[in-house]
């Protein structure tokens, strides 16, 4: 099964508007993170007193969309429209297959973040992935703080496959 990729090609190079994160870099999330990965079990009072920087990996956590919204937003940004086109063509399962993260500096507590997504490329034909045949999208994320300063750049390769192919064990 293949699709006409020209509509998705038309979106390559386009960048989204700045998407704000839901919460600033904050100490309670850092404390939860350290507790869950069993790195640090100090009390919240010590975290409040001593924490000035955030672990870099929390950047992706803060950039995650809301679990639920009273007013769901449609697919308006270029990367959302590209993914929707692939889903409508039958490639309904999205998988992140590679993620390269560059952290330019530690995040400070209280920084309000936003990110933009640019479509760097899309495969021109169906590719065979470990999860089954599909199309690959390359997305480039740029994260900024409230002053427009770039704090991180990330490249994400995403596969949209028709269904998850599970290898038989024997």
């Amino acid at each position, binding site marked *: 099964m293949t699709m006409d990729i020209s509509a998705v090609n038309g979106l390559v190079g386009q960048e989204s508007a700045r998407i704000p994160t839901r919460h600033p870099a*904050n100490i*309670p999330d850092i404390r939860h993170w350290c507790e869950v990965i069993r790195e640090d079990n100090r009390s*919240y009072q010590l975290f409040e007193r001593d924490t000035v920087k955030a672990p870099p990996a929390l950047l992706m956590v803060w950039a995650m969309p809301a679990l639920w919204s009273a007013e769901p937003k449609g697919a308006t940004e270029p990367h959302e429209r590209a993914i929707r086109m692939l889903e409508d063509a039958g490639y309904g399962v999205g998988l992140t297959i590679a993620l390269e993260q560059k952290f330019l500096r530690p995040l400070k507590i209280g920084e309000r973040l936003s990110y933009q997504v640019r479509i760097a490329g899309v495969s021109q034909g169906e590719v065979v992935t470990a999860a089954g045949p599909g199309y690959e999208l390359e997305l480039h994320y740029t994260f900024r703080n409230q002053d427009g300063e770039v704090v991180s750049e990330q490249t994400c390769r995403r596969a949209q496959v028709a269904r998850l192919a599970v290898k038989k064990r024997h």
Partner: protein
Amino acid sequence: MANKFGVLPFNSPLEPTMDYAKIAPLIGVQSPRHLPHDRVTEVDVDRWCQVMRDTNPLYTDEEYAKKSPWGGLLAPSGMVHVFALGTMKAAIDQFVHGKCEFPDDPNVKLNLVVEQEGYTGVMATAQRQQHFRRLRVGDEIHWTLGIARLSDYDHLTRQGVGRKYQMLYQFYNQNDELLCNQSFDVLVYRAPMSTRRLYAG
């Protein structure tokens, strides 16, 4: 002697069961006040509202909340127990290694006795909260726990023979104002397999 259906005569001697006197000293005793594992924060309140799909602006809209009679962001009252829950380390210590965070608390001592008596199954059955004061973002919720009552006879339940006890949580803010009384009903029963072994996998 049991009849052919395994039924004992009515005037048979009572079977041995838990001696209530072993836990009587623990009834009505409240633990010392414990600290929460987190302050009430805007971030946690927002996540709760996401999961519960609660759109009340008193919880998430700071501008709206400042103009309200409460003068600032509130937290949903149902969240009060969240801040008394232990950390992941405390849960692993308790359920995997058998080490309780507050070993002198009356509920911990009670559980040791009922386990020794053979009531190794545990099931939470009911929770009721009585709220007196709103929770505010920024509050530090101290809590205390006690045993309000325990059955002095066995019940026959779907889980088997068991006893019911009721815990009483009391939640206070940093100004020593009582926020909530919470009763938490538990059934302990004679289980075919130890509950702790089930948790340990």
